[in-house]
């Protein structure tokens, strides 16, 4: 596990919707070391400004040849807003790759479920999976929230889209798409698919419930507040399903088996 503290140039920053951005950096060391599900901490303040103080965690969306490191993020507050103001040639300080990524395993098929910007890590994950019978479910509030659909279609056998307002794909939540996959709760599944989920807490909980009924293991990628992202501050605690112990999302995760987590 190699981690780097790098000063990276922005190759490209594309505004995909009003508040969703696709950031492409040049970060050869990090890109080479990165595994699906890992994340980076990005400094967002400009120049020598000290505010916002902390770096912001973003999942690695993709890595490419010649050191491309990609992120997909939504502007939700001051840090992401400042990041979005930068453009090609500007510099971003990045720490990564961090944390434990997805366990890729050897399941004969995989179902990847992303809600909102929880779709970000799924592209890099899909690229890494083998054998390649991959279904990706992308959920959002509306069509605007479903971004980079063409890229996802290139890496998966099947891509299902759900939107809450029905403006694209299936109207409903990601679970509506899961139901359609026709993996019956009663059936004894011979080659159980691997399930991966990333998105808002209630969405992941719903996916876990759906999977639990079917006896399927789920890996989830969690978000918490983070200060360091490197395992030294112990700030990113989340309750483990085992009694009185906390897991630390930045070093024990961000990816966990759902059964290790206390879903509250």
């Amino acid at each position, binding site marked *: 596990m*190699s*981690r780097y*503290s790098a000063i990276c140039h922005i190759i490209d920053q594309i505004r995909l919707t009003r508040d969703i951005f696709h950031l492409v950096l040049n970060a050869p060391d990090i890109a080479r070391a990165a595994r699906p599900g890992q994340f980076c901490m990005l*400094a967002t303040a400009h120049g020598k400004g*000290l*505010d*916002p*103080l*902390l*770096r912001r965690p973003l999942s690695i969306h993709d890595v490419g040849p010649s050191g491309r490191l990609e992120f997909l993020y939504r502007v939700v507050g001051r840090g992401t807003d400042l990041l979005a103001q930068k453009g090609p040639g500007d510099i971003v*300080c990045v*720490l990564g790759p961090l944390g434990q990524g997805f366990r890729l395993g050897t399941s004969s098929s995989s179902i990847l479920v992303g809600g909102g910007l929880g779709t970000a890590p799924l592209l890099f994950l899909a690229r890494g999976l083998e054998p390649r019978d991959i279904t990706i479910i992308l959920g959002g509030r509306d069509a605007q929230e479903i971004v980079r659909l063409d890229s996802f279609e290139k890496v998966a056998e099947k891509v299902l889209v759900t939107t809450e307002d029905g403006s694209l794909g299936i109207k409903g939540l990601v679970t509506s798409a899961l139901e359609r996959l026709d993996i019956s709760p009663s059936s004894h599944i011979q080659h159980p698919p691997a399930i991966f989920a990333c998105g808002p807490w209630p969405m992941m909980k719903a996916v876990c419930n759906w999977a639990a009924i079917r006896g399927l293991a789920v890996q989830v990628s969690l978000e*918490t*507040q*983070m*200060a*360091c992202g*490197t*395992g*030294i*501050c*112990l*700030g*990113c*605690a*989340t*309750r483990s399903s085992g009694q*009185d*112990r*906390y897991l630390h999302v930045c*070093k024990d995760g961000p990816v966990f088996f759902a059964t290790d987590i206390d879903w509250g």
Partner: protein
Amino acid sequence: MPAFERKDTHAMTRPEVDLAGIKLKNPVLLASGTCGYGQEINDLLDLELLGGLVVKGISLIERPGNPPPRIHETPCGLLNAIGLENVGLERFLSEKLPWLEKIDTAVIVNILGDSVEEYTQIAQRLNGVPGIEGIEVNISCPNVKAGGIAFGADPALAAEVTRRIKMVTSLPVIVKLSPNVTDITVIAKAVEEAGADALSLINTLLGMAIDIKNKRPALANVFGGLSGPAIKPIALRMVWQVARAVEIPVIGIGGISTPSDAIEFFMAGASAIQIGTATLVNPGSAAEVVTGIASFMDKEGIDDIRQIRII
């Protein structure tokens, strides 16, 4: 390994200092709670470049820490309510110290307790353990027996803890003061008189934030400790005051992230400094501070950093 391959870091790690009997390659340490037990950060920050590190506060028994959320960002600052999560004394000695022993840097163990007895027991156990250069006593914890008032807020309690610890250890004892007091020099003098070998200041300032969307405190613990650049002016003021009130060395802590921040503390009277929150933001901060101090000294033509103290 052959001599010519050995890492010759001496030129990079100047200036050596003697801090209450502890030999340091340079006066830059990592602050407790912001460098884990060292191993977690060594790949991003070569600990051998530094004077030393103060490990995460150790209690007698392992502690799980507070429920999340534990941290919250504030303007130029960080609120934390980690709740002193730590592996406990015995696991520290068996699991963490062996790795640290192999690293050529000073190891100072930050200790904490809910009672004078707990502090004393830990200090006694650490006495004579190879690989430990000093003890830093965190007196910001509430004294359970005295009704929850922090040791660090009461000169008599602070002195009592210090005296009892000094009785059971021959290690240099550094007492880390809390800034949440009316007059920090009163505590500093009481602790000095009780035999402390050095003082560390400051620990975090008590603060809070509110999550207005969810209409509740941003931290599960309600209150948290404020650290980072925001508190630097307060820390510097206290170091200035205490350095003029006591004879023992003062280690300056609070919001230091650049060489010039560190130099402000040396000018105020600090004999060494610790870097906390800055390492969380940028793991390389401490190494940059070491380099910056060395080149400042070159430019000023001095060989002892204490020469820049303002009289």
